[in-house]
């Protein structure tokens, strides 16, 4: 089976989605980030577990995905953004994140660990997504495209070769981990 056959086969993709979800949920729970207290601790800046998990995933994921892009076995899928969509939506998300204490992935994970509040949160997330779908025509013609970003990727924006930016970001993440270690964070 070639890679294109796998990518285009609906049933295989549904199976892969399930397996990916199981692995993702398992890792999120083992990392501790399906726990409300841990996520709120991050937003109150008293516990840095969420940032450690995210930046470790970014470090390893970035090096792998960019290597696979160079080897032509993976493509990038960046989304364009704007002030009206990315910044406004991101701040609404952040406010909800603090009130709910989970994000969409960790809410699903928390449901699996027996957190009943996360179940209400998950229902809310679906309702919120449905509200957005309803508002989409109005938002698309008014605010979503306001202040479009000048580039799709950070390397394009600053005009530096992607490989150099990957190395720079990797160094910065490792430096932050070292600071966490030194200060016992």
């Amino acid at each position: 089976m070639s890679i294109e056959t796998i990518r285009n086969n609906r049933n295989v993709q549904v199976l892969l989605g399930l397996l990916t979800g199981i692995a993702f949920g398992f890792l999120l729970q083992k990392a501790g980030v399906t726990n409300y207290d841990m996520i709120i601790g991050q937003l109150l800046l008293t516990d840095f577990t969420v940032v450690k998990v995210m930046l470790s995933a970014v470090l390893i994921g970035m090096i792998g995905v960019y290597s696979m892009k160079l080897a032509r076995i993976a493509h990038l899928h960046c989304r364009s953004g704007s002030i009206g969509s990315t910044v406004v939506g991101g701040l609404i998300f952040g406010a909800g994140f603090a009130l709910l204490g989970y994000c969409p992935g960790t809410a699903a994970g928390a449901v699996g660990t027996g957190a009943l509040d996360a179940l209400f949160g998950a229902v809310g997330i679906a309702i919120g997504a449905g509200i957005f779908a309803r508002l989409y025509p109005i938002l698309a013609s008014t605010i979503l495209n306001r202040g479009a970003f000048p580039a799709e990727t950070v390397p394009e924006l600053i005009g530096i070769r992607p490989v150099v930016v990957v190395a720079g970001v990797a160094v910065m993440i490792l430096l932050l981990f070292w600071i966490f270690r030194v200060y016992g964070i």
Partner: protein
Amino acid sequence: MIEWFTMASWSPYLAGAGIGVLIWTVFVLSDHPLGCSTGFSSTAGMVEAGLSGGKTREMPYYQKFVPCIDWYWVLIIGIVIGAFLSSFLSGTFGIVAVPPFFAAAIGPDAAFRFAAALIGGILVGLGARWAGGCTSGHGISGTLQLALSSWVAAACFFIGGILVAGLLFGFRFP
């Protein structure tokens, strides 16, 4: 080997690295990023289609993100199963209505916590679709591709989250 699966927690660095490797497999086998809010959007679309019929599928947003049982939808089901397996194997699974921190800071009333979670969830779902992704789609999958929109989105998630958490529970840092 088996004790790895029954441990209550792993190093966040190790678990995070595992998520990074998992994302490699998604890029190779499925040719798209790993994101969680799309599955919730599909759920909303399918529920609405079930309640109000065919009109839902003609909505412009659902033409763009067709609500169906696809990779993104089963991902969410998988996350529930995976987190259940992990917590069950380590003996930490337990039905909890009000998380300890919320109970101590705000109060132990379950109905109040559920209402807060529902309203917070609505904002999370609305904001994630508005911004074009959530903590996984933008925060991890997008930032690792060095997408400008994802770095801005991740910053806004945390700016909004830190501000509102501070207003709700009091700023505790440093």
